[in-house]
């Protein structure tokens, strides 16, 4: 098992950026981050780490369970807020103060000159996160790691990173088969294929609204604001080949698309998997009718980690969970605490 775990550290080194995403609080995301940070070969790679929004508080704001600070090794770079930088418990050298402001002040980037503890709270918007990652490349960072919350509270999408590790566990559901099903669904979404290069070039700059591309490759804007709107009409879209939703994709909209006979074989494009808020049933029905969903941005899912213990203390059988989940998603699954 340890040998396997080291393999996924090797996988990480193939990418310039990694996000570690928890499906729920207390699914072991922070444990996973600590695990990764402790094992990366710093002599080979310059590593920077940040977190989307407030994270790394000593106590979890929601469940009041203990939440450890992140321990950084000497030589690691990190992005955090001014407030948390002032509370750092290590010696570090400031290399950048960004214009990106969070509720805890601006995001600063520094290099650890000794090992030590830090509370991480980085950029809180997708654009801010992208900028930070871009800045890291300027500072010759080989690997930028994002501790990413996958919650409605976070406006920043972890999907801007090249690779991803997903943390799941009993906190997400204490019913094992439900946990496996729900996790497998998210894995399916993360693994959605990219749309064509020409669509990516055409659609990426569009940050809001709904758009469609006809069979001649012409782009049209739909006369309404969001996919949440009730009055969706698909008039004059007989030759629609691609439908792009810049905002959130929800059940009601997907159902309307599915029931429209002109859009039977439509390719529905969303920015990334975090924009998809549909139930597995709706998605299955949509795909069964001949529709496909594609994304503009995708991360390579490297591994899934599990925390078999729920915040209330309920414990699932780790080995069974790892095996069953691994079979369901066709990817290695690790219980890092156990190992």
């Amino acid at each position, binding site marked *: 098992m340890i040998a396997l775990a080291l393999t996924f550290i090797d996988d990480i080194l193939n990418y310039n950026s990694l996000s570690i995403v928890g499906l729920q609080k207390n699914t072991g995301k922070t444990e996973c981050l600590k695990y990764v940070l402790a094992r990366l070969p710093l002599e080979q790679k310059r590593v920077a780490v940040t977190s989307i929004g407030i994270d790394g508080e000593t106590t979890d704001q929601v469940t009041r369970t203990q939440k450890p600070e992140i321990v950084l090794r000497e030589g690691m770079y990190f992005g955090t807020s*001014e407030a948390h930088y*002032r509370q750092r*418990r290590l010696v570090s*050298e400031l*290399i950048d*103060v960004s214009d990106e402001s969070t509720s805890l002040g601006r995001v600063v980037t*520094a290099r650890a000159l*000794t090992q*030590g503890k830090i509370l991480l709270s980085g950029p809180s918007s997708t654009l801010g996160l992208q900028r930070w990652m871009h800045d890291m490349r300027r500072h010759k960072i080989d690997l930028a790691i994002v501790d990413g919350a996958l919650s409605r509270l976070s406006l920043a999408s972890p999907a801007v990173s090249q690779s991803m590790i997903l943390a799941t566990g009993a906190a997400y559901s204490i019913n094992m088969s439900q946990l496996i099903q729900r996790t497998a669904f998210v894995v399916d979404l993360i693994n959605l294929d990219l749309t064509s290069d020409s669509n990516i070039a055409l659609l990426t700059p569009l940050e809001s609204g709904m758009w469609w591309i006809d069979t001649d490759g012409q782009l049209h804007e739909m006369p309404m604001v969001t996919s949440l709107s009730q009055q969706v009409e698909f008039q004059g879209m007989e030759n629609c080949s691609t439908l792009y939703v810049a905002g959130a994709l929800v059940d009601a909209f997907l159902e309307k698309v599915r029931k429209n006979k002109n859009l039977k074989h439509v390719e529905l494009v969303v920015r990334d998997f975090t924009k998809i808020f549909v139930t597995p049933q709706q998605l299955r029905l949509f795909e069964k009718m001949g529709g496909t969903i594609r994304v503009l941005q995708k991360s390579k899912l490297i591994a899934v980690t599990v925390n078999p213990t729920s915040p209330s203390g309920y414990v699932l059988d780790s080995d069974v969970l790892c095996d069953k989940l691994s079979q369901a998603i066709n990817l290695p699954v690790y219980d890092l605490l156990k190992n």
Partner: protein
Amino acid sequence: MQLKNVIESPCGLRFMLDGLDLQSGFARRWLLDTEMMTNAEEIAACYGVLQHFVDFVRSIEPSFLNTLLFRLQGVKDIRTTIKNLRQSSTLDDIELFEVKHLAILSTEVVKLLKEHNLDEVVDIPSLNEVITILDPDGMKIATFYIYDSYCEQLKDLRVQMRKNPEKQEDLLVEAADIEEGVRQDLTRQLHSHVDDIERALVALAKVDIGVAKARQVVEQGLCFPAISIDGSSCYSAMFHPQVKDALGRAGKQFQPVNIGFAYRPTLITGANMGGKTVVLKTLTLCQYLFQFGFGIPASEACIAIKDDIMFCIGDEQSIEKGLSSFAAEMKNIDAVIKASRENRKLLALIDEPARTTNPTEGTALVQALLKVLATKQMSLVMTTHYDIEPGTAHCLRVKGFDNGLMNYSLVEVEDGEVPHEALNIAQSLGIDPEWIDLARQELEKSE
């Protein structure tokens, strides 16, 4: 009056500002906070500096420009830090970093400007001593922490930390006191340089703004105005950049116009769609651009300095506030009359006053307005569709339909008699012939 107060004027100032490729948010804020200039020497000096920047932009390699722009992107608004330093409150690591970052950046920018003798145009004070204070190891890179070299004892503590990580927490506490002492000492040393630091920050914003304005001059074909001494203004081949841009994108050309005015009221008449409102917008825009030191959209311009600029145009915002369009307009023009009674140099630009009421009273209101304002020491440019008595104003008319095409140029006319081209224009727009033909018959009846 600051630029930010007039930025939303319907004359199109925002388009010009948005078109400036400024590198830092600080430069943008600083520009928006600048006061409108009303002093001839100040305006002349401002254009003198801009001329140097235009020469610079025209002569340099794109790669050199990119290097400079990249440096300017690094400028941060550290006014809060500067204020803290001025008050001698001990700066923390982030603030010390900001000061060092600025010092290194400004030194790099000075070096770049020196290559083109621009360092004499914008005075950036040397911050070498500041760098020495914050860079004890002479690394010359813009990073910062309380360096080991500041204090032998601190160095020892950190060596111990690395050797005994288990004792780190205690050692950090011990080091914290020493670090705070170093910060106090650094703050004391930096305090005597606070004026230079502030001047350098502002100078970097000025370089950013200068380069951006100069690039706008070159890219949009703007000119440097002469400053009028007799109160008259005149423009050759004046254009509105935003309208020109929109036309250009539709594959059409903007027809520039020539116009001059002094203290005698100027009345512009002419066909619908003849560009009268665009002329007023452009004149307003040019006046602001002039007094905020931008290039002027014309081939030549000589502009008189004004204390106040008032632009009255059908104002949607007042309608939103619940005023009828007539009431909103009357209030705006009322403000012009009140302002004209004060002893200030005023430029008023009024678009079709009293257009929303009946023509009999409308004509009377416009006629009377001209008489009221003609006696004041102010410049007035007004458009109208009403027939105005000869003699009250300097009259210009849009040339109008010429061989089936609109000719937007302005011609001098003896009186304010307005052309009757509305029906022809409507016809050329493809408006329903039943309506237009009936209107012609109505006209013939009344004649």
